[in-house]
């Protein structure tokens, strides 16, 4: 008997639940991007905006002005950390709740509302025009990211594809197939597992006997790491490491971000049916906004007055987005047909013309 291979999974946290820097930091200090704490303020501001937007979207749904909506409550550090680490020319293949990352990249709040409001135009971001839109079929986006990375590598573009998948999504074969391809072909792609502990009503423990989800990277022979997903600095740091590695041509990696879904799965869900309030309360103590705020306050770059001003400003921005959404008229009947093909088949033209006629005839 001999040992033919050994592996380990590291866990990284820079800021603890109270926003205090961890005593045991690599090199004894925070990553370079946090050298000047003021540089983190824009990220924090976006986290707050995302959360206020989220609350508003839920309110819209409750009053019948929006369809089913997937909240990002509690995921803000993971999402903004992803967005902040990426370059504009990189490409995001999200699942359906990474608004923080998407806002950072230029997606508009009104896009999000249009999408969940049942209008395809929500997917037609003007910026970032090359990013994939929301992806509902779980884990299918992982392969799009791998494919995008094939394109970047083939076209000699120094770009990286980033995809996000849930803890539940790590049980899908597509997730594994994408990582395996990425490993075999050394693709410039980063897989982020947003482990928020629940897949609707199914807890993380029921998805897999794997102690960590990061270790799923071992199956593909690629680096896997676990980070505190409520720690903005840890997420951004791990992302930057992974992006850098990919950009240098050293291939893919996977990051498991440990966070928690503080909300219901979507507005169509009622989480009290299947999980204990105590667990949620416990998780709430670890949520990302307050810890980031405490850190920034302790560093002297943030205070209560700024917070107040920020909240007022965010409310205005959100209201403006809602107004834009609500003032967007429904698409013309042709829109059902016109984007199916570049070269529309005759039979589809006939269906379109008949439909338009019927709509016009009332």
């Amino acid at each position: 008997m001999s040992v033919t291979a050994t592996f380990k999974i590291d866990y990284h946290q820079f800021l603890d639940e109270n926003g205090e820097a961890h005593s045991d930091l690599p090199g004894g200090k925070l990553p370079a991007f946090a050298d000047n704490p003021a540089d983190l303020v824009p990220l924090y501001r976006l986290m707050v905006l995302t959360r206020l937007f989220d609350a508003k979207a839920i309110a819209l749904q409750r009053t019948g002005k929006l369809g089913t909506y997937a909240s990002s409550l509690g995921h803000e550090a993971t999402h903004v950390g992803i967005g902040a680490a990426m370059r504009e020319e990189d490409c995001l293949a999200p699942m359906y709740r990474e608004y923080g990352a998407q806002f950072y990249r230029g997606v508009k709040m009104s896009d999000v509302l249009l999408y969940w409001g049942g209008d395809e135009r929500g997917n037609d971001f003007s910026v970032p025009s090359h990013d994939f839109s929301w992806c509902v079929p779980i884990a299918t986006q992982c392969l799009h990211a791998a494919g995008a990375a094939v394109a970047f590598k083939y076209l000699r573009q120094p770009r990286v594809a980033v995809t996000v998948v849930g803890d539940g999504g790590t049980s899908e074969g597509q997730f594994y197939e994408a990582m395996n391809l990425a490993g075999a072909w050394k693709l410039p792609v980063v897989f982020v597992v947003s482990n928020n502990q629940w897949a609707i009503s199914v807890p993380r423990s029921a998805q897999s006997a794997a102690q960590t989800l990061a270790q799923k990277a071992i199956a593909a022979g690629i680096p896997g790491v676990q980070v505190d997903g409520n720690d903005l600095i840890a997420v951004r740091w791990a992302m930057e490491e992974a992006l850098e590695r990919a950009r240098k041509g050293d291939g893919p990696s996977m990051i498991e971000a440990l966070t928690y879904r503080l909300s219901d799965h979507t507005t169509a869900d009622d989480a009290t049916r299947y999980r204990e309030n105590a667990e949620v309360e416990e998780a709430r103590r670890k949520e990302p906004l307050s810890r980031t705020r405490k850190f920034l306050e302790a560093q002297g770059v943030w205070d209560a007055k700024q917070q107040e001003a920020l909240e007022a400003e965010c409310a205005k921005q959100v209201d403006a987005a809602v107004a834009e959404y609500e003032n967007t008229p429904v698409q013309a009947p042709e829109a059902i047909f016109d984007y199916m093909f570049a070269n529309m088949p005759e039979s589809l033209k006939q269906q379109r013309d008949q439909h338009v006629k019927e709509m016009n005839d009332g």
Partner: protein
Amino acid sequence: MAEVALVEAVTMALAWEMAHDDTVVVFGEDVGINGGVFRATAGLQEKFGKERVPDTPLAENMIAGMSVGMAAQGLKPVAEIQFMGFIYPVVDQMISHAGRMRTRTRGRLTCPMVLRAPYGGGIHAPEHHSESTEALFAHMPGIRVVIPSSPGRAYGLLLASIRDPDPVVFLEPKRIYRSYKEEVEDDGEELPLDMIYTLRDGTDITLVAWGAMIKETLEAGEELERQGVSAEVIDVATIYPLDMEGILESVERTGRCVIVHEAPRHCGVGAEIAAELAEKAFMHLLAPVRRVTGFDTVMPLFRMEKQYMPSTKRIVKTVLDVMAES
């Protein structure tokens, strides 16, 4: 006798069969403590325990493949796919194995499994939550495709599907999951598969539909009555194998037929029915067979989904056109 909605009739049938057949196991994503996202399995885990109503990891192809294995080795798996929009990963296991197990092994191994999924649009759901792709399964040899359109038929047909010794894809029209209740006796009585159900008698034209579209089709029947057209309405119920004898009997009497379905038109199940009529009712047809269907497009997001769904008005108009043509 209880007044139940369609989705409750599903639960009732599952509970009956689990109580009477130890080999029935119900599973899927969120079917346990959550009772399914539509509550179709509500209370079952409490009643029958976690082992008989387990939540699975999130993987649809896995659900189909494990069902094949379970069915071949003595169980009767009744698996739920959360929405038809997520059913596509099962295609491989269903066509490559479920529908083949019996014939491949000359009957040595069989595959008595049921795959349940809510299907169809009209509930303002997000992208991928409104699919009607029953035709894909209807083209797979060895697999029955069953669609109830009332609480009573949901109960009786689901029992029959579970008891059937071969694989059944059982599609539940979620738009009418809770739209009305009717009395359904919880007596374990199944209803026959492979058979149409005639819901309305008529003499001028035969309207053929299934699932949630039965609602609009029956409404069209009422409206047509007012306009002096007597429409027979048939619920196909089993999409494969089709009860063409039943449909032919009606069309031969009425001489006309309009087929209604929500799925895209091209290569939908309506095409098969129309093709059979074109061949076998040729001498009896007084007018062209027409189809009122979804468009050959992706189901639009919900702001425009109503435009996509065949409406009572479109059915009535098509019928009147057909009447005018003969």
